[in-house]
């Protein structure tokens, strides 16, 4: 019984992390119409930076925000200097992000070498939470809580603010939005930075749990891809639901069929692609 419970909590935690990762990916895909193939790189680089800040004695939350801020800057530079040059050529942009992901992966290897790094959980969140007569690792619970908080914040931004309305207009129909005076290219930069920052934040959140190692980017990117295909591009609710589905599939799959765990993850995605290409919550894929 405790095994299933532990798996359950771990699944929720992974789901929360995946949401932080995929929300940005989904928004970028929805607005800019490109799967950002360096999203895993943002996650990994963010985790490495966070680990370095932590090793220098910085407070955990400060390190997470600092890492996210750094990634916002990097993401912004990439969008303005490189992606924007290829405006309108989505395929080229996708390949560009692929090339950049290789560069980032190797740079990380050069700077941080090949040994995995596992920063300790923040001191305030070590220990367990006692509820319903059972014990839950506090950190994992916190990750879920943070993910939900971010989800609410994003939802408020997208649904309730003027900025959000502009983003939604851009997601619906970018050329028309442009004609109506919305500065779509600025929104592109904003969303790309936001996505990068969220991914980095997720990376630091996940570091005590997943550790940081070369290849982390290649492990996380397909998960974001699956979540977004499953949940529908541009849909936050889809990203949320998809993240938790994948979190559960991954953990229970690993426990029950370790050889096939990876493949099991892709099955719902393939099913969705075949039966309902727009995902569970998205509208028709362009």
């Amino acid at each position, binding site marked *: 019984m405790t095994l299933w419970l532990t798996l359950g909590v771990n699944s929720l935690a992974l789901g929360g992390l995946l949401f932080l990762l995929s929300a940005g990916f989904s928004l970028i895909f929805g607005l800019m119409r490109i799967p950002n193939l360096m999203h895993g790189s943002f996650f990994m680089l963010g985790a490495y930076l966070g680990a370095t800040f932590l090793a220098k004695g910085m407070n955990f939350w400060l390190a997470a925000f600092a890492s996210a801020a750094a990634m916002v800057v990097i993401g912004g530079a990439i969008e303005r200097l490189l992606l924007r040059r290829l405006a309108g050529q*989505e395929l080229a942009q996708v390949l*560009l992000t692929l090339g950049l992901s290789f560069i980032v992966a190797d740079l990380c290897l050069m700077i941080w070498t090949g040994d995995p790094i596992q920063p300790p959980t923040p001191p305030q969140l070590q220990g367990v939470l006692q509820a319903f007569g059972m014990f839950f690792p506090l950190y994992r619970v916190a990750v879920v809580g943070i993910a939900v908080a971010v989800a609410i914040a994003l939802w408020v931004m997208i649904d309730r603010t003027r900025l959000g309305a502009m983003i939604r207009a851009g997601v619906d129909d970018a050329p028309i939005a442009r004609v109506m005076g919305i500065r779509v290219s600025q929104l592109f930069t904003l969303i790309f930075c936001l996505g990068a920052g969220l991914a980095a934040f997720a990376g630091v959140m996940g570091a005590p749990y997943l550790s940081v190692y070369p290849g982390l980017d290649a492990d996380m990117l397909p998960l974001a891809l699956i979540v977004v295909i499953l949940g529908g591009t541009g849909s936050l609710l889809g990203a949320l639901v998809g993240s938790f589905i994948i979190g559960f599939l991954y953990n229970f799959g690993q426990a029950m069929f370790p050889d096939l765990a*990876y493949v099991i993850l892709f099955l719902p995605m393939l099913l969705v692609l075949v039966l309902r290409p727009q995902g569970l919550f998205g509208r028709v894929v362009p």
Partner: protein
Amino acid sequence: MTAALQRAAIVLALFVLATVPVWVANPYYVNIASQILFWAIFALALNVLIGYAGLVSLGHAGLFGMAGYTAGLLLAAGYGHWLAIPAALVATVATAAIFAVLSLRATGIGFLMITLALGQILWGIAYRWASLTNGDNGVNVGSRPAPFGFSLAGASSFYYATLVVFLLCLVSMLLFVRSPFGAALRGTRDQPRRMNTLGYNVWLCRFLAFLFSGVWTATAGLLFLYYNQFVSPQIVALQTSAEALLMVISGGTATLLGPIAGAAIVVVMKNVVSAYVERWNLVLGVIFVAIISFMPEGLVPGCVRLARTGYRAARGGRARPALSAPTEAGR
């Protein structure tokens, strides 16, 4: 370029290729030549989809690895080459058919993402299903085949075998490019809706092209297996798909010479760079980004273009037409 000059160039090229082990003394370089040839086969196969069907696949390493692993596992289990080779070809074409059915539900970026995911599934199997594939340890193959009794153990003999297969591939590609089917496929790339109205079955054209691509990708995978006598999950990874893609786009997708040149460039660079710098991925990424940002039509056509403008300037405005690939047919 006149027809006579073209024919002379082809004969010269064939002569040079056929005599590589003679004028290249060092087996290390002969091996590099072999590598260029089978990677060129892979690049040509991928270009069937990218250049001629207009579909960018990021999952071809899956097919490449499928061939290598099918043959490798059969050989490791004690079966002979006469079974391993056809089995690998059949298995890979079947996989290509599955890839096609799933990925052709979309075009453009959707197609790219589905092929990426499918390639990743195969990588996941190679890497994680250790009881089947030996996981990270890879699969060792004891020996190379000996067709008609000729041993392929040496660098030169393997090179000649690879050259023969490469030439077969090239002929196959030439026929395909000039054929009505090739023209139909390019039509579906340029104006799919118009082709539909004209009576073509666009989906079926693309499906068959995928299978054709699969056959030669499998062949390249087999040559890779026999060259290294080893296969590992590395070969099924996204990076391999990206390298093949780099070969195609660096050489240019519009001709048959492009992917061959691209393969040569990438293989030589990889071997040269690895000697000086540990970080091949970094270089791969930088080149990728540079080509996409500045020379999207490909390194070879881009340089030809630059050379043409430079040549024209040097001659004061009256330039002869630049060399075009002798195999650019049917446009």
